[in-house]
């Protein structure tokens, strides 16, 4: 109930319009990886998924941000079922990759932002290695590029009040790690897959 309400509000504020250009909505296990420009990003991807997929899809988020208040922690745990990871100083004990693999399990999907943080420019930052390691450990999972546009105008970094513009999400063709493909090549290819979704 709360989840459906949250999703409806998110869709209303962001005016989000989802375009499934490279794949169709499906409950199979996927990792959605997207560019990151706004606090709304994870919420909006999660909200535009059909309800059955939404129930199985967990956004990966920075623990340092979401544990700051009780409300945030409640939203992260109860609404999004978020996977909170340590992004500042990962240790063997606090290993983000292991947390993400555990969260995937055998039926969940993930939403991740491989740039590592919100960007303010128009260009994508280089992707972090986690995406590569996930792809290496879970060759059975589809990696779906997602391009978010205009959400940084709805709620830019550092602003509290949203402006009601229409954001758009494009879901591209899933990619997989090729045999013998190295980290740099794969991450470059993943980044290009997101960029390629920009409308001509």
């Amino acid at each position, binding site marked *: 109930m709360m989840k459906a309400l949250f999703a409806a509000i998110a869709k209303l504020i962001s*005016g989000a319009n989802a375009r499934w250009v490279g794949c169709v909505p499906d409950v199979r296990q996927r990792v959605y990886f997207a560019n990151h420009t706004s606090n709304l990003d994870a919420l909006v991807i999660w909200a535009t998924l059909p309800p059955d997929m939404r129930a199985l899809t967990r956004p990966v988020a920075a623990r340092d941000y979401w544990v700051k208040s009780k409300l945030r922690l409640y939203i992260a745990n109860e609404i999004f079922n978020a996977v909170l990871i340590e992004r500042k100083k990962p240790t063997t004990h606090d290993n983000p990759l292991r947390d993400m693999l555990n969260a995937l399990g055998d039926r969940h999907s993930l939403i991740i932002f491989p740039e590592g943080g919100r960007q303010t420019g128009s260009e994508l930052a280089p992707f972090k290695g986690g995406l590569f390691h996930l792809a290496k450990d879970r060759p059975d999972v589809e990696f779906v590029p997602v391009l978010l546009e205009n959400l940084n*105008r709805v709620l830019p970094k550092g*602003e509290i009040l949203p*402006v009601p*513009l229409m954001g758009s999400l494009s879901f591209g063709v899933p990619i997989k790690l090729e045999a013998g493909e190295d980290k740099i090549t794969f991450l470059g290819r993943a980044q290009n897959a997101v960029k390629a979704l920009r409308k001509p």
Partner: protein
Amino acid sequence: MNLKPDKQTYWLVGGVLALLLVSSLIGWLLSLRVTSDKGKVTVQNLNARIRAWWMMVAVFGLAMATGGIGSVILFALTSFLALREFITLTPTRLGDHRTLFWVFFIILPLQYYLIAIKWYGLFAIMIPVYAFLFIPIRSATAGDCEHFLERTAKIQWALMICVYCISYVPALLSLDIPGYAGQNGKLMFYFVLVAQISDVLQYVWGKTLGCHKIAPSVSPNKTWEGFIGGIASATLIGAGLWWATPFTPWQSAGMSLAITLMGFGGGPVMSAIKRDRGVKDYGNMIEGHGGVMDRIDSLCFAAPVFFHLTRFFFT
């Protein structure tokens, strides 16, 4: 604003409903008869448009039925949706964020509040003067100089078209026309009907007889046949509705001509903006029509002119 529906209002509403019924029937017959693929697409779009018209007429009718305030709220929401579509298409920068917040949540509601309390002296100049001066001040204090004039101009233009011009439709309710007190709802109905039916008739004439394109690079579907046929037939219909207005038949014909010509002019202007941004429609809210802005472009351009003509000659 106390607008009681009278017998003439019922005639207007009944006429529109009859027209919709006939259109739905024709659309249904066409869908049975069409065979070619291209024809099927056209008829599907036609029927989607007709269905959307039923919805729009229902919403407009409901707003009218509540008296003045419902119409003000309806057009405020229309402005909000149109402005949202417009600014989404228009590149602004981070430095404009708080200005945009003002535009959506303070200037827009304020304009419609002024319309609701019928403060002509202020609603006529609030956006062209005060918002015009305030917007660059707010953006400049945000400290981003890149493309400053361009960004400011775009925001001001969006406000003028999507808020200021559209607000002239419910502003018709505030006109004090001798011998027409309490009947302004019909004047607004007349205006919207003539402007929209002109769009529809231009479409119908263009689809059936159109071959000479007016400005193919801007509006590929606009033809001279559609233009002349649409304007002439809509003006005739407008003249025939004189009994619902404060005008004589000839005055009503003149007013309708002004509405249809201005409405026609709005199309290519709003199209040119879309095409410059590389899109076909402003949005996808209204099935078959595109976005809200795609449907109201003619109202935007016709409303201020119709309001001021009526105000100058009849009050």
